[in-house]
């Protein structure tokens, strides 16, 4: 009897340790930057941090599902852009209502994800290669469809309010938190629930942990893989809408590079690239660590080129720390 209790407690301890470490690092960073510059801990700067986390955060949350399967998705950045371009075409070229444009963008993201998933599940291509190909395809298509020029949403006033408006502020005056932030947090909570409480989440861990055993247990592994990549694609669509809403334009040349930041956030948050384990909370913390770092370094007037150097070093050490923690389990 005592043995059962001990097992349960040690499981909690090791997962909680990891989250605590990640969260603790975040707090330490915030403290360090706050001490280093009075401009850091201002309300407007905090809002700026959270806002810039929103887009990358949504992307990171979505790709967490894929990484838990032990796969990877290099196309999330360009798919995000592709979704925003589709929305732009629908709204600005074809004068469709904003809602239709948004749904079109989301559908575009999900469709790209579904195609990636199908190529990986049915054609048995390694995820790295399949999504590398999709990345190039969506990047090219974005440029083709948009005519290589940005698409502006000037005529659709409602569009920029998707991310930058504040529904919260309308209801509770004084709480002018941009919608993008709220959407990010809501999607994170939803993703966490999906991951832990639904069959999709369960099979996600199962096929990441031991795909063959899952298949032999009578589960349609191919179907669920496709669903997971499609879900990740949907999140790319959401990120695309948020980003283009912030910029009030769909920028076809943007996007590539975002995937590496998102994957870095997932990995810093403690999710293993080998699959089988991971949490949304970890990803969210990882995303915040990335944006706090970027923002803090900028406030300290560190040159932009050096920022990526610092972030790269952080990623290496974060994953190493996690490796050590895992080894001691």
């Amino acid at each position, binding site marked *: 009897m005592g*043995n*059962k209790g001990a*097992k*349960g407690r040690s*499981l909690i301890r090791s997962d909680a340790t990891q989250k605590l470490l990640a969260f603790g690092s975040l707090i330490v960073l915030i403290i360090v930057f706050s001490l280093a510059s009075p401009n850091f801990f201002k309300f407007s700067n905090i809002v700026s941090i959270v806002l810039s986390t929103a887009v990358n955060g949504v992307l990171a949350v979505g790709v967490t599902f894929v990484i838990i399967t032990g796969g990877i998705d290099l196309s999330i950045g360009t798919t995000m852009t592709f979704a925003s371009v589709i929305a732009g075409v629908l709204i600005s070229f074809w004068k469709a209502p904003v809602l239709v444009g948004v749904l079109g963008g989301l559908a575009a993201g999900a469709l790209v994800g579904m195609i990636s998933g199908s190529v990986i599940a049915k054609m048995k291509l390694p995820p790295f290669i399949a999504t590398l190909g999709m990345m190039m395809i969506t990047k090219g298509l974005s440029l083709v469809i948009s005519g290589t020029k940005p698409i502006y949403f000037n005529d659709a006033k409602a569009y920029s309010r998707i991310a930058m408006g504040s529904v919260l502020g309308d209801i509770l005056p004084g709480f002018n938190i941009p919608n993008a932030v709220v959407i990010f947090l809501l999607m994170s909570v939803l993703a966490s629930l999906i991951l832990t*409480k*639904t*069959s*999709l989440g*369960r099979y996600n*861990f*199962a096929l*990441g*942990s*031991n795909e*063959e*055993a*899952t*298949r*032999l*247990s*009578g*589960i349609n592994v191919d179907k669920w893989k496709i669903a997971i990549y499609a879900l990740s694609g949907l999140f790319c669509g959401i990120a695309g809408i948020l980003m283009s809403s912030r910029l009030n334009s769909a920028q076809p040349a943007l996007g590539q590079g975002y995937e590496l930041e998102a994957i870095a956030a997932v990995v810093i948050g403690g999710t293993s690239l080998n699959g*089988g*384990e991971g949490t949304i909370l970890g990803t969210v913390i990882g995303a915040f660590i990335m944006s706090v770092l970027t923002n803090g370094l900028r406030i300290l007037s560190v040159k932009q080129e050096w920022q990526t150097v610092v972030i790269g070093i952080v990623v290496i050490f974060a994953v190493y720390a996690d490796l050590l923690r895992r080894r001691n389990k």
Partner: protein
Amino acid sequence: MSDVLVLMEGIDKTFPGVHALKQCRFELCSGEVHALLGENGAGKSTLMKILSGVYSKDAGRIVYKGKEVEIPNTKAAQDLGISIIFQEFNLIPHLTVAQNIYIGREPRRGVRFILNEKEINEKTQKLLDMMNLDIDPRAKVSELSVAKQQMVEIAKALSLNSEVLIMDEPTAALTDSEIDELFRIIRDLRKKGVGIIYISHRLEEIGIISDRITVMRDGEYIDTVPAKDVTTDQIIKMMVGREIYVTSEATDESANNEVVLEVKNLNRGKAIRDVSFKLRKGEILGFAGLMGAGRTEVARAIFGADPIDSGEVFVNGTKVNIKQPIDAVKNGIGYLSEDRKQFGLMLDLNVELNTVIASLKNYSKLGWIDENKTRKDANKWVEALKIKTPGLEQRVKNLSGGNQQKVVIGKWLTRDCNILIFDEPTRGIDVGAKSEIYKLMNKLAAEGKAIIMISSELPEILRMSHRVIVMCEGRITGELSYKEATQERIMEYATRRL
């Protein structure tokens, strides 16, 4: 034993290049434990994989409970009530016991895609209680011992209301008390009318637990006999098609030879506690003990695969500092690990490369490999060790277990190792190949090599060892000469907790 549950007739199966099953036959009654025997490559696993839906048959028919059925996939087999427990378990390591048992058919809460975690855990607890198992439904499967994992597999099969349970080498990784526990459960199932197909190489167990025995050889059905009507020799003859003479081979000729390896006060946490012993030239030193006694840990420590807290190792009288395997190898020590597939071989590479891989420096000038030399030496070992392979280019993963093991031995012999540590050398190897490995070990000892043989099979220990060292929970609890060694005395030392 009553109604016929399963009848397989005329089963034929061909894989590219291999006619695996030729007109095979198998019959299982309800409430029966039916052993399926045969050398590696005889086709037993293939036949059972067809019955459980993993493979599809090319010809023949399967009659289940009087009706002819098709079993195109594992789900179809499950729906019929046929479950298989593979030798390498089919569990998902990151999920809990309960999650594994109910994977794919989790009880839902309200909406169809939300899982009812509470119910999953409750149902699992009931199942485990019914089987009298002390396992926490919430424990992660990867953190359970091998024996407990196997129990989880059985529990999963039971929860599927299986009427046919196929067990492939169920006791390979279990201690004797765990085997007793397993047999208790099997007997319970038999009483309930479940038909159990039991594949194993351990002939002593077959005699204890089975009602009938079916023997296969080279993809063909040989015969079915009641278990109590056959002797072990008769079974072996059916399996192998030839007589194998089993004699005791231990000697004490090495008792006065020089000491080639001496270990003094080896310590590593709780796994190795103050271990000291000597190994002589030409000796086969058996290491007996229960699973987890620390024997593999000692071997790995000597070999430099794991660090040690304290202790000294002397090779040929000189103290050596072994921090990594390369240090051990340089001192002439070779280690054949327990799990040769994971740790001993590069499965995708060919026989030639696997044989010379530990000695490449001797075959290369300035980094360039002399392929004539490697080919010649690899061929020499293939002949000397009688490795059955179509050629040196054959990928090692395509060889049978026994031949794979010989390739690993060849690797260390190529490196001119004089001290060989064999960890469970005949695990998963059929009777015919086993006796070849024994012959080989004796030959090596006669040539002056010093051998440590770690084994959990007492008959093997008793047959081969010149001397036996018994370990329990990290300590050496007894040392016996081959004359003194009996199953009872070894067991006594193996369970003596100091």
